[in-house]
């Protein structure tokens, strides 16, 4: 381990600071920036119709850009934080995150959006979605628990697996109470991926995978899920059969994307987008904007950009010099990969409608910040591996 306990910032003069820029995964960084800029364009297109009568039609876009700026700064910090420091403080980060998750239930603090009580009101009309930070916290906590005190070649003990599973299930349980089904699904796949890649015994992987599926089925069967949640989950199968709001959304979204054809109606020219036919198309349904206005070509470019980010994340996970780094990167791959699939999939009618944003693209400050922190963590793991290999 080449790092010291003090943060890198303090040792800039030592000459190693130049290696930070050299060791960065530039392809990852450029792809992340490209996706973010692409996303801003879509947010601008989606919000200009809603904001047409506002005093400043660009105010929504401006807020989005500020969120990006904050996210990039947080990502930069995440990339420079010392590994050991991060591991040492992970329990505190995790604890803080769980407390934040409980806050939306407090009256006067929490806000319900789209049926999910998952937001904290902030002054100035801003909101914070603690479940986004919880994704980072769960990944860090599980990585710590599964890589603690053991030889990298040895498989994790059952106790470690159980502990890490517990660390995942606590926030998952709280988020389930918030009715934020989409985040639960994402966190579940993150937890499963981390445990699998940690080298845990195969029966754990198969058992957990089977358990998750049985759990979902039981939840539906025994009525743990409310009717509208079931409807949301199943309306994607036949959106025309159900006249509920989520079916309407699914139908309008599919029409918008399908109408795009090869190259779309042109930016700012999509009739469905500009006519506000697709609800929340600046956040959860933002893929409909690229689908309608930029067509199949634009949609493919966006999916390929996310693909590049995920490819670099897999490479970083593979080349990580310790299990901790690998598990952090693996968690991020599962998070971004599954959330992207779920989000885009729901707009195209192959996944159930759940309220989760498209990483780096959707408007929504907390998600933007959390995703940039993830990008920063990936860079951190890579830089760590690069230095270890000197």
């Amino acid at each position, binding site marked *: 381990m080449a790092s010291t306990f003090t943060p890198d910032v303090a040792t800039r003069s030592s000459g190693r600071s130049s290696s930070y820029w050299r060791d960065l995964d530039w392809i990852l960084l450029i792809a992340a920036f490209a996706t973010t800029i692409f996303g801003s364009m879509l947010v601008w297109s989606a919000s200009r119709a809603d904001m047409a009568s506002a005093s400043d039609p660009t105010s929504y876009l401006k807020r989005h850009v500020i969120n990006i700026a904050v996210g990039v700064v947080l990502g930069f910090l995440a990339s420079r934080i010392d590994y050991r420091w991060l591991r040492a403080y992970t329990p505190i980060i995790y604890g803080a995150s769980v407390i934040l998750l409980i806050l939306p239930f407090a009256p006067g603090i929490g806000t319900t959006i789209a049926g999910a009580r998952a937001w904290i009101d902030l002054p100035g009309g801003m909101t914070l979605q603690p479940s986004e930070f919880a994704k980072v916290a769960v990944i860090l906590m599980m990585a710590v628990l599964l890589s603690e005190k053991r030889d990298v*070649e040895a*498989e994790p003990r059952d106790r470690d697996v159980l502990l890490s599973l517990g660390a995942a299930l606590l926030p998952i349980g709280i988020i389930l109470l918030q009715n934020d089904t989409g985040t639960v699904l994402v966190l579940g796949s993150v937890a499963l991926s981390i445990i699998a890649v940690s080298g845990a015994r195969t029966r754990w992987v198969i058992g957990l995978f089977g358990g998750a599926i049985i759990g979902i089925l039981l939840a539906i069967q025994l009525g743990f899920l409310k009717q509208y949640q079931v409807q949301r989950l199943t309306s994607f199968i036949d959106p025309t059969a159900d006249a509920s709001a989520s079916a309407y959304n699914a139908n309008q979204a599919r029409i918008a994307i*399908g109408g795009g*054809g*090869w190259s779309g109606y042109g930016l700012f020219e999509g009739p469905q987008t500009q*006519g506000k036919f697709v609800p929340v198309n600046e956040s959860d349904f933002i893929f409909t904007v690229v*689908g309608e206005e930029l067509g199949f070509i634009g949609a493919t470019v966006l999916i390929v950009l996310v693909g590049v980010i995920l490819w670099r994340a897999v490479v970083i996970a593979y080349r990580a010099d310790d299990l901790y780094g690998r598990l952090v990167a693996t968690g991020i791959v599962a998070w971004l*990969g599954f959330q992207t*699939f779920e989000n885009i*999939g729901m707009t195209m009618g192959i996944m159930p409608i759940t309220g989760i944003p498209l990483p780096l693209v959707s408007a929504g400050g907390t998600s933007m910040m959390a995703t940039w922190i993830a990008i920063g963590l990936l860079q951190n793991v890579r830089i760590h591996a690069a230095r270890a290999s000197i």
Partner: protein
Amino acid sequence: MSERSNLRLLVLAVLVASLLGTLIARAFYLQILEGRQYQAAISSNTEREIVEPAVRGLILDQAGRPLVNNRTSVVVTVDRQTLAAEKDDGDAVIRRLAAMLDTTPTKIRDRLAPCGTEGAKPPPVCWNGSAYQPVPVAKDVDTQTALTIMEKRRDFPGVSASLDAIREYPAPFNVNAAHILGYLGPVTEEQLNAQGDSNAPDRLRRTDEVGRTGLEAEYDKILRGVPGIRHVAVDTAGRVTSTVDEVAPKPGEYLVSTIDAKLQSIVEAQLLAAVRRAQAQGYGGKSGAAVVVDVQTGRILAMASYPTYDPSIWIGGVSKKQYKELVANDALASNAYQGQFAPGSTFKVVSTAGAAKDKMNLYGIYNCPSSVTVGGQKFNNYESSAYGPISLTRALEVSCNTVFYGIAKRMWQEEGGPDAGVDAPNPIAEAATAFGLGSDTGIDLPGEASGVVASRQFKYDNWEKKKDTWCRNAEQGYPETRKTNPKLADYFTALDKENCTDGYQWRAGDALNAAIGQGDTTVTPLQMAMVYATIANGGKLYQPQVAKGVVSADGTVSQEFPPILKGRVDVPKSAIKFLRNSLPGVTTDGSGKTPFLGFPLKKIPVASKTGSAQVTGNKASTSWFASYAPANNPKYAIVMMVTEGGTGSKTSGPSVRKIYEALFGVRGSSVYPGKSVLAGDAPQPGLPAVRPDGTVAIPKGAGSGVANSRQG
């Protein structure tokens, strides 16, 4: 790191890659393979069509005088969208508007209700148009009210006043011409269904008015123009966000009629005079018609029908009471081209041609006794006068029925008498068909009647159709009638017994009646006018026309309708020559002499034939006067008839004379071509000039026929 970890990471990578691949495949399926379907869904989702109606084209007479015009009317419209956005759903606005327009809020609400919605009144009260189109709630609003509404915009959100074009009849020279012009009515469900799922901009829409009859119907497409279409993008709340595309309306074109307004007004007045003459003689004089045709082109210069109606009653929808009156008066159909009447002696020209077809000597001597007996039945001459042996020319002049009876009897016997088959020769019926009787003339007006040519074939077909009824009646013996009048029942029963057994037979009586235009033969006055026009022009069969061409509103000629020559009439040329030589004598020395006493026949010889057709049940005969002039250089043919009118010469003749006087500029016994009712002593050779502003240049000396203030 462990192999297991590496492997599982690889599995995760492959899984994520396949998920992204799935997304691209799904996008390809939705956007490329099914894209067209979704594009259509977007259009119907986000686009609305707003129709700006095209101004309907005018109908002009042959000199360019507007017969049908548009006048502007102030229309108050209400935009339902704006009203719905009001806090009280627009109730206050409607209350204020009702007070301004002297109506009730309920009436306005009824008007605004889209047809087919709950509680909506049936059309035309409910609104049949698009939800995005402002609904007209009041027509002919006075300017002051409209201005007040426009000034107090804040009190009347969504209410607007605009100018609308409404059909108007300037009636130059007080012309009526209702049956030629036709009228407009709301588009029918059948018409809408007939065009299927058309998307053409000029397709019919539920709010459209279309021509129902006459020229308005025949040339509806030309007159209607193409409405302007604006496609607007709307948002999910239905607000218009932008204009997608816009096409300006193309105004309807001007239809130029062959009718001359001045002549038409005279013909209408003379027809009325003839009817009054009939009534003055104590006859019914219930209906009548008159046709003036240009014999060298087949163009109809005037065509009148009695009774008629005021065409303006259709504007804005006819009331039930008005419609009932129209039907009760038989005023809706034109007697000139939709009425079918026995032609009487005017048919003798056809019989003469039939005789010529049968190689009879047109210049021989024929006996004109007071009656002819065939098969024990006696057929009397008109008023039973006998002229002895006379030429065929003289027989036409004095309209001797028995000469034609004799001819018909001889032909009938030669054909095989009562036992001749249905396809045995029948020269008179063949001549009638050759002249165009028994079939449509092809005039450019809808709903023409074709008349009937009595013949063996017709008799047989008729028997086939009716024999079951006849035979049943013969068996039952009219039990209802028998209760009150056993004698009449006996007569009916005997008649039907005979009809039942041999009603298909072309008997001598049928042949004799057919030869003098009686019996089953019926014609329209228009058909008769075309027969005399054909004789006049030497045998050319023209298709009559009432439209001459189309001029667009900016003045360019877009279509000219040349005369349509259907061919030569299939009768011997000698017959046409004989008739042309004989018919002037009717006016100078025959049955047409009286009405033309004092007319300068030397300068303008008139060929004519009178007719007094007996109609079963009518006390008085149908008065016919068929003619053309000048006989030596034929220009015009005129046919006039009045039912229950008396004789042709007494009732119709004087009116026909007056029309000739007008046409040729006759004053006393002098002729002044410059004083002809037709400017330039002839129909206009070309189409009238329309100025760029849409007004029409009327030729010098023609006169507009309307007070200056109304000239448009």
